């Protein structure tokens, strides 16, 4: 009887691959976790529109912005080439400014200033379905949008202020630290 039950469960599972398989987004995040585990990137976190979507209403976007801290190079050069080479070896090819990972265009953005370095260091740990990942804090998304200052960034600030659970004291400290208080 036990054997039959086990067989039945096995057959049931084989008929329902979607229940067991990860989503494409989850698979993409698993690849990013592998890159971090293998030391290809030192740390990563979701940023941009998808991070704003994490805290607020969904925002239309076509790529997944991933902020990365890259390992130190001998000359101190900030280059994405080793990361792109590694992804190519894993079968993920470039498409314009992005790399297609499990069908999702991922844009890697190295932490190029102190604000982004801090945002990555303090990014929020979370789970996407069953996969651990990181998302930039909402306060850092506001600060980055202020620093970037495009029209869509102002809209992002408005939406985050309206819908995201912002820690105002934390946000004020971030803005003061990075000279953004007057903006």
């Amino acid at each position: 009887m036990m054997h039959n039950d086990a067989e039945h469960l096995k057959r049931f599972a084989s008929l329902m691959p979607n229940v067991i398989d990860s989503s494409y987004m989850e698979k993409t995040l698993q690849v990013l976790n592998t890159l971090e585990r293998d030391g290809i990137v030192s740390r990563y976190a979701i940023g941009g529109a998808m991070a704003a979507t994490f805290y607020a209403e969904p925002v239309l976007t076509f790529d997944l912005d991933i902020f990365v801290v890259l390992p130190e190079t001998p000359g101190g050069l900030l280059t994405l080439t080793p990361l792109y080479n590694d992804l190519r070896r894993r079968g993920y090819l470039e498409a314009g400014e992005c790399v297609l990972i499990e069908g999702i265009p991922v844009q890697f953005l190295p932490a190029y200033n102190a604000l982004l370095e801090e945002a990555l260091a303090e990014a929020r740990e979370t789970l996407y379905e069953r996969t651990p990942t990181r998302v930039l804090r909402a306060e850092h998304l506001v600060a980055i949008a202020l620093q970037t200052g495009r029209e869509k960034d102002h809209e992002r600030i408005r939406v985050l202020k309206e819908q995201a659970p912002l820690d105002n004291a934390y946000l004020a400290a971030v803005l003061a630290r990075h000279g953004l208080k007057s903006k």
Partner: protein
Amino acid sequence: MNKVTPLKPEIVQLFDASVNRRKQLAALPFPKKVRIVIQMQQMVEPILRARGRSIRIWPTD
């Protein structure tokens, strides 16, 4: 100075409903929001394609 005409209660109700809807969307679990983003991509794709912009829609499960 021109006097501002107050909004009709029906209009105020519509605005409130819109704000509430957006708050409900914001409260959804992240994977559900990702699925909504993909639905939005599918909706705008024909418009953007007609304007000559090639975009890539994320795969769905």
